[in-house]
Every structure is written in C-alpha cells, then in structure tokens.
C-alpha cells in the first residue's frame, strides 16, 4: 500500500507544472519512504539520517534555489500533462512486464520500485525546467531506495550512506548549475540549452 502511494507521488511530479508543488510531492514521497524504512528491521540511525536529508534538507535546498530563480512565467511544457502521464505510465508498465522475479519475496514491492525508477528517469527526459530534471533524479533514487528495502537482510549501510552522500553532492552541484543557468538565460528552461550541436 505504502509503495503504491510512493509511486503515485512520483507520477504526481510528472503531472504538476509548478516547481513548488513538485518539490512538495518529492518531499512527501521521501518522508513516506523514510517512514517505511524506519518500519523495517535495520539500522535506525541510517534510516533516520536518510529521512532527514531526503525529506527535509534537500527539499529545503531546492526551495532556496526556487526563491533565487523566479520564473517570469511558467515554462511551457513539451507535451500536455495527460500525454506525459500516459508516456511515463507506458514506460513504467513495460519495465514491470519485462522484470523477471528478483527473489525478494515481495513481487509487488519489486514492481513498484522499478516502476518508480522509470518514472524518475521519465521526469528527467520529459520535463524542461532544470529543477524538474533534478527532482527526477531524486525520484529515481527513491525508487532505488524502495527496492533496497526489499533486499533480504537489507542493503549495507555503507552503500545507503554512500548513495545518500552522492545524491546530496549531485543535488548541491546541480543547484549551483540551476542558478547559473537561470542567471545566464533568465529562465531555467533547459530547452534553451541547445547551442552545442554538430
């Protein structure tokens, strides 16, 4: 049930147009994932730290970026919300169909997790604002964390903390870029970053 809600929140990021709504959705998704992790047998310290960073620290950073990169108007979407949703759902469904059983003992969780990774990747590909692409990376990482919860005996805390550190590093660096792109273009629309062609 919780895994389905986490997936639905990811699909919400595909649909919404406002960056602030999308940050809120990803924050709630990370919170739900963190609570699910705390509920599992494992390192409480690690689960708590992951929850704090993903559900609070990174969204707070993104809100700060949002405030410094105000858009004069909403960035036009490459496709309508229903088209985006249909495309993402089709890609996720295909991944689920092709997925062989992974022997976690919880096929539903396996499918939800892999579908969420695909949703995250689709957000990066389909959404034009830089901040949305960044959120797509976090959604994909949340999908990986969801799958990691299914690993019998749990994934090593070294990997969980390392992946968290890498995610935080990428988000911080990408935040620099988002501000730089906005400063240079006056907007965070990555569609305008098409000057380098051969």
């Amino acid at each position, binding site marked *: 049930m919780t895994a389905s809600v986490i997936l639905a929140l990811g699909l919400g990021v595909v649909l919404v147009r406002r960056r602030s709504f999308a940050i809120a959705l990803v924050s709630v998704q990370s919170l739900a994932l963190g609570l699910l992790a705390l509920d599992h047998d494992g390192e409480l310290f690690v689960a708590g730290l992951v929850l704090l960073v993903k559900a609070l620290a990174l969204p707070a950073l993104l809100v700060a970026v949002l405030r410094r990169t105000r858009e004069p108007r909403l960035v036009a979407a490459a496709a309508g919300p229903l088209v985006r949703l249909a495309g993402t759902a089709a890609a996720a469904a295909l991944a689920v169909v092709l997925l062989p059983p992974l022997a976690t003992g919880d096929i539903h969780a396996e499918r939800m997790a892999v579908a969420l990774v695909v949703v995250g990747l689709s957000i990066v590909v389909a959404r034009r604002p*830089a901040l949305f692409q960044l959120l797509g990376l976090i959604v994909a990482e949340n999908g990986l964390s969801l799958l990691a919860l299914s690993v019998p005996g*749990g994934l*090593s805390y070294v*990997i969980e903390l390392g992946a968290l550190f890498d995610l935080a590093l990428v988000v911080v660096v990408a935040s620099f870029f988002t501000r730089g792109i906005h400063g240079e273009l006056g907007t965070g629309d990555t569609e305008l*970053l098409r000057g380098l062609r051969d």
Partner: protein
Amino acid sequence: MTELALLVPLIALAGGALACLGRTPAAADRLNVVAALVTAAAALTLAALALTGEELRTRWLQVDGASGVLLAVIAVVGLCSALVSPAFLRTAGRSWFTAARSRRAYYAALYVFWAALMVVPVAGNLAVVWLVVEGTTGASALLVAFSGRREALEAGWKYLVLTTLGLSVALLGIVILAIGQAGLGETGLHALDWTALERAALEHDAALLAFVLIIAGLATKIGLAPVHNWLPDAHSEAPAPISALLSAALLPSVALVAWRVKTALEAAVGPGAAGAMFIGFGLASIIVAVPFLWRPLPFKRLLAYSSLEHMGVIALGIGFGTSLAIAGVLVHVAGHALAKSLGFYAALPLLRADPEAGSRPLAGVAASPTATAITVSLIALAGLPPSPLFVSEVLIALGGVQAGETAVVTVAVVALALGFLGLLHALFDGVLPEAGSRSRPHRGERQLVALTWTLGTGLLALTVASALLPGSALVEALL
C-alpha cells in the same frame, strides 16, 4: 602495497588542500606544483608495484596489472594537467566563481577529481567503486562549467544529468545483484566484492538483467554510443587540462570497472552474452565517431569524437576478451592517454592566442610548437606507425579473429581506416599553412615543447614495450 593503495588518494586530497592554502595566485600555483609532484610520485610507485608484483586481492582492494596501467595513466595525466593548470588559470578570464575564489575552487575540484580517479582502479568492491565513480561526477561537472559561459553551463549540465541518470541505471543493476546474492546467503557490503561476485552461483535471468543495466549505465559515463551525447560538449567546453583528465583518465577508468563487471558476472550470464554487449557498444561507437572525424570541427571537439572512437576500440577489445585483445586494450589505454592529453594541452596556447579558435576548425597553426604537438597527437591518435595505437589496434583486431569475430573485425577495421583518413585530413587542413598566411607564435609554448618531447618519447617507448605484452604474465593474469 595495501597501505600505499589507501594512502595515494589521501595524498591527492591533502595536496588539494595544500594548493588551496596559497594566499596569492602565485603561491597557490607553486603549492600546486609541489602537491602534484608528490601525488604523482606516490601513484607511480603504486602503479610500478601493481605491474611488477603479485596481484593483491583483499575485501576492499583489487590491485592487478590493469590497475597498474590505469594508475600510471591517471598519475601521468593528472600530473601534466596540474602542471599546465597555472598557465590556464593565468589567462582563463571569466569564471562562474568569484575572482577571489576561482583558483581555490579550481584546485579543490581538480584534486578531489584526481583523488577519486585513483580509487577506481584499486577498489575491490562493485558498490564502493560505483560510489566513487558517481563522486567524480560532482567535482568534474563543476570543472567542465568552470568558465561559466552559456556553452560551458550547457555542457556541464548535460554531463551532470546524463551521467547521473546512467549511473542510477547502473545502481539499479547493483541492487538487483545484491538481492541475488542475499538469496544465496551473502549479505552486506562484501557480497558485492569482485571476488564474491566471481564465485557466486547467481540465477541467470536476474544476473543477466543486472549485467545489462550495469554495463548500459556505465557506458553512459564511458561515453560509448549511443549514450555518448554529453561527451563532445563536455570535452570541448571544459578547461583543456580537465578535458585531458576526462578523456585520458576518467573514460578508461570507468571502462575498467565495466571490464571487472564482465569478468565477475561472465559465469552467471554466459561469456557470449557478456562479450556481445561490449562488442555492440564498441562497434556502434567507432561507426558513430567516423563521420564526425571527417567534419571540419573545432580542434577540441574533434578530439572528443576521437575519444568516442577510441573508447569503442577499448570496448571491442574487452568484448573479444582473448589474450591478444587484452594486450591490445592495455596498450590502447596508455597510448590513447598520452596522445589525447597532448592534443588537449596543445589547445591551451592555441586558445590563449586566439579564443575564437575554440569555435572554428583548426587552421593556420603551421611552423609553431603548437603545430608540432598537434601533429604528434593527431598522428598517434590516427594510428599511423610508429604510434602505439597502430600496434594496439592490430592486436585487438587479431584478438577478434582469435575469438572468431571475423565479421565484427572487418567492419571495425574499415571504420577505423576511415577514421584514420579523417584525422589525417584534419591534420593537413589545420596544420599546413594557408597560402600567404603566417602562423602566429603563441605565448607559453616552452612548457608545451617539453610536454611534446616527454609524451612523444613516452609514445615511442610504449610502441617498443607493446611488443613484449602479448603472452606476458601481465596479460595472462587478466584473462
């Protein structure tokens, strides 16, 4: 050797901190030279031990002949990049960092990147090496966009997003492997050690899925076609010393990770399937690169497409996996690193004298030390004898025949011949003087002359050494 392997990246990090301590630009540059020399000396010592000593396999480390070659490459290219960096920074102009911070930011990111690169060839665990490879992305993306120009931001953003995306796919594969290992009773971090993966009796379908995801994800970071879109932009927009590190050190280091994955999972997925994926990526990369080698492209962009071609050759060699092909891969990694980094260093005085040269094809650089460096680099990259890349390509082709992949070898050889002609075409067009034109002398070329002699001599020495590799204990240990 264990202590040194752990110490080398720490020395690089300490060196970066030292360079950042300089209160004036000149002091920072001097400290950078000291830090670079010490770091490179430590890394070369470790490389020598890896190439001449017993293979070291612990739970955290795997140091073998391939590690030795990569460590030597990373040490030499890192040292050269650090030594030419002051010349770049003196005339870099605009940066997206404030003037006061830009030098420190540059050195900090350079040494973090260099330190991370030196962990990759010696890490004994798939998950740890993934974390380090992902860690290289943050530091190197900042360096790619160092100028803060629109094009540099575009290149840095593409690099950051696409490689992170690819590495997310690879991590999905790693988690699937962890699930498979847990099913066999192997849990925790060490279930993903190279040695643990090699002996694991993983279920075929899940292992194959994990293998495909990991290799496809890593291919994004190696810059193999068709997931290479970030490569030409990042290589052409990054500062020249960073382009050299990206092309000559980062790409082959990640290729080594992919090779280790192949070795570890070959038993579970089957040698045919494992090799086929590398051959597919390799052939696609060579074929995609060739038309661009014929186009009149700016010099650094031309070098970037050459990287695509050469990573394709390395992937082919890994895919064939025979004794001759592996010997060829080792020579190719080293030869490509020396030749490609020299090409990027040659771009420094070129762009300093004429910044517009970064946006138009090479022309009119005849009769200058820059022309000599470009000529040596392009001839070596084209694979014209006595370039070691000629030897390595022949070895890989023979290795392909040895593996029974004659059709693949035929296509690859034709594509490589076309690429060879394309690079020679660029050389003649760019370096030979236009009628009535005189080449302009470029400042700071003494350093380039020294680099040309050093790296050129290294290329010739490698050609000689490559004759000793086939059938050697170094190669046999990697099969």
